[in-house]
């Protein structure tokens, strides 16, 4: 059972969290401008990394915040947990649907 450091509440047992899959997948700005292949790529294709993996977790039993975790998928060692909005995530802010 992992010990996950919620960026807001601190270290808590894995049972307090739910998993959200790979992080950093920005929603395309205009889905309807994409080909079926490009849309399928966004929808289905994941890195499935062996080694360091950026993923989303939700502190479901705590503050209900989503955040990012960098975790080694081989050793399960967590390198870092951080808020979604921090610059470290360098998320694609152009990817809004509006």
């Amino acid at each position, binding site marked *: 059972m992992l*010990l996950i450091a919620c960026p807001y509440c601190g270290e808590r047992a*894995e049972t307090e969290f739910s998993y*959200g899959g790979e992080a950093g997948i920005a929603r395309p700005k205009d889905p309807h401008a994409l080909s079926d292949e490009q849309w399928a790529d966004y929808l289905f294709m994941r890195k499935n990394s062996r080694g360091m993996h950026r993923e989303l977790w939700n502190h479901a039993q705590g503050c209900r*915040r989503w955040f990012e975790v960098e975790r080694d998928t081989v050793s399960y*060692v967590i390198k870092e947990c951080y808020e979604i909005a921090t610059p470290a995530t360098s998320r694609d802010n152009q*990817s809004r649907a509006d």
Partner: protein
Amino acid sequence: MQTNRLDTGGRIDRSKPAGFRFDGRKLQGYTGDTLASALLANGVSIVGRSFKLHRPRGIVGSGAEEPNAIMQIGNGASTCPNLRATQVELYDGLIARTTKGWPGVNYDIAAINDVFGRIFSAGFYYKTFMRPQSLWHVYEKFIRRSAGFGRAPAAADPDKYEHLNAHCDVLIAGGGPAGLAAALAAGRAGARVIIADEQNEFGGNLLATAATLDGAPASDWVQQTTAELSAMDNVTALPRSTVFGYFDSNFLTIAERCTDHLPAIERSGSRERVWRVRAAQVVLAQGAFERPLVFCNNDRPGIMLASAVSTYINRYAVRTGERAVVFTNNDSAYQTAIDLQRAGADVAIVDSRRSSAGATAAIATGIPVLSGHVVVDTVGRKGIKAVRVGRWSGDATQTVDATITIDCDVLAMSGGWSPAVHLQSQAGGRNEWNDELQCFVPGESPQENRVAGSGRGKWSLSDCLEDGLGAGKDAASRSGYTPVDVEAPNVDTEEPASMEPLWRVPASQPPDRCPKQFIDYQNDTSVADVRLAAREGYCNVEHVKRYTALGFGTDQGKLGNINGMAVLAESLGKSIPEVGTTTFRPAYTPVTFGALAGENVGELFDPVRTTALHECHEAAGAPFEVVGQWHRPWYFPQPGEDLHAAVNRECLATRNSLGIMDASTLGKIDVRGPDAVEFLERIYTHNIGKMSVGRCAYGVLLGEDGMLMDDGVMARLGEQRFYLTTTTGGAAAVLSWLELWLQTEWPELDVFLTSLTDQFSTIAVAGPNSRRLLMKIGCDVDLDNAGFPFMSVRDAELAGMPVQLFRVSFSGELAFEINLSSSDAPRMWRTLMQAGEEFGITPYGTETMHVLRAEKGFVIIGQDTDGSVSPVDAGMSWLLSKEKDFLGKRSLSRPDCAREDRKQLVGVLSADGTTVLREGAQLVEDPHARQPVPMCGHVMSSYYSACLGHPIALGLVAGGRSKKGETLYAMQSDGSSTAVKIVSPVFYDPKSERQND
């Protein structure tokens, strides 16, 4: 008679005899004994039959590694199988039974298997019983009967078990010399320490050694140390506690056996407690296992590990034989020879090495030593009578001829030591082969831990103590404490510790011709089996394990693992590190299901959610249906009614006059903020901006794959405020889904989401008289169609209580949903029931709700959909906005979603007008078509409709909307079929006039 009991010594209490039964025999031992030591004291030599060949077997070890003495302990519902007699503490009244052999271990009919032993080679089951496959169910019955150790109790477990979450700075697994030293160092530094040891007393090997510390018996230091530890507030010392699992982020599980060592009448409280420990730092001090030696007939009762022979003498005052041979490839077994001699046995030593420091010392004490010799074979079917010894060339490719026979009744063997790397492996650590030590030692670990003592090849006692202190200090300082100086006690006589590898003794015949040379006693895996596996192409150690069963069962790589790897390496022409070890997984030793389940049984098995009206429903005698964790009233039977009678009555009453239902389990979400409209537009499929305040809309949300995810009613309470309902089962998932998008993708939107599921109770009143009922109890808003049309919401005061009143309908009738504080809900329910009497108000449950909505063709997400149904499939295209994007919209134009022959929602009527179809029944065009019959759809919801007077069903049928009027066949579970007609899914009031009444 305790014929093998020594008059003095040991840690048994001779003033407290303990009577016990072994396979019905009445025997006696002492408090302080294990079942194994008591059996040996009584001269019991055969304790089991081997797994496959049914050879008589005796006790080999003195701890977790014991392969043969697997016992069933206790009677009735509390009986426990699979216990190692070496780990069962003796108490007065203990009942033990052997678990293999019929009719008994002394005379076992299946021992005939041994005669045909050559047939029962590796992969025997795979090769023999696979063909013809149709007969497997016959074979299986016999194989199952002859497999396994012991029996699970048939009755419910009467005992209590508990779990306890714990946190510490330093967890120490193992309370031998290294573990105790580590605990002392960490404890004195002030760290929060938990030290656990599987035995009844701390001390480990210090309780079984003749060595002295600071001039006193080693057990004195143990006593002193444990006394100091138990006086420390920051130290929790757990005896009888096995660290059985090492998981991620230093999370370890400990099984503490609280009462199993006590006579039945003295037991109280929980039988076992599982500690779930989160440790900042871990010290693994589990020690090492002695390795057996591999030679012909090395499994006869009386052949034991040398360390076990010493343990029985020193700790339990049991001398397991009078004429002993010690067979070794290392120095540690010399102490056993000395222990045996001191206990009055005749001893001879056979040492594969040509010379050693140990031999020099032994010869000085008068013990004869045959250096450069090995035991080739043994004599004695039900107990060892003699060993046959030959000269050892040092080369395993050259056979050894037996030239000397030595009579004996016990053979103590030592093939060196293997660190118990199990927990370190579970932690994700690597094991590395150490050529000097000739064993795997723990290597790098991804977790915050360290191994101390013989668990990493520190064989001498002084090294173990020093190593433990170092580990304890390191662990304490890494968890933020300042280590203090702790001095290790002085070990008075230091034992030499050299060894030369000896993996197998080659007999004069090849392994598949000579008598069995066992590697794994419990699974009857021999040298010949491993070599056969290698010859047949198995070169991966994990595959060889599964093919030969090496290390299966309770063994899990404790006893025969390294010998097996070495034999495999030799067969493959590789080195041992190239072959590697198998993976060690939890549990380290077997754990009972009771302990794992803990308190999560009976009424605490799963959380139960009840609505504020639960007591009203209980009083009405409603049975409950479990929906998620909710307990919802299923139906409200009147005297003499079954489910169907009650549901028919409830349906008719609602359609004809007035029904009332508790819909409080619906998920409810408050959505507020300047960007609420924009946010909801992106999530839901309909146009939200066009909704005016006070209006409601039916809304669905899709996954990005375009499939239906959830549905509910959306009410606009203000310009920037909405109230959403979700399905009962989808409440948490929808809120989490909304938060996901809000927080990760659209953080610029100012919206707050708050769950109101528990705050509000929802009471639905449905039927032509529902408006009259609300008017009767006093409502401050206009309820007629003009003032309060269908799909509207109002803040109202109803019967003096503040409510949010919805004019929505899940039954197709004129209906209202009253949302109000759960504190007021019971009063409202009672008021409505009382006022509704004149209309024959009828409470209804989930079953009637299902029938009423199915009559209207309303789907239930999760029942009529399965994650592969799009809104188009479900006939909801009218809900999909063309003017905006929303989650999942793009997917609806993917080629697969646009197919005409996707499964579509239809109504299904049985052609005979009477058969209620089975939910889940497959629909086919021709039931007599050649198999496999192409399936074109299935039935999802199926009921008898009392209002229509015939059964109805909803189905998903490929291209179903264009198949209306066609006949298909529903397959029944007995293989027969029923003709059905495909119709519109709306069976009742197709123009939906009643809800607008």
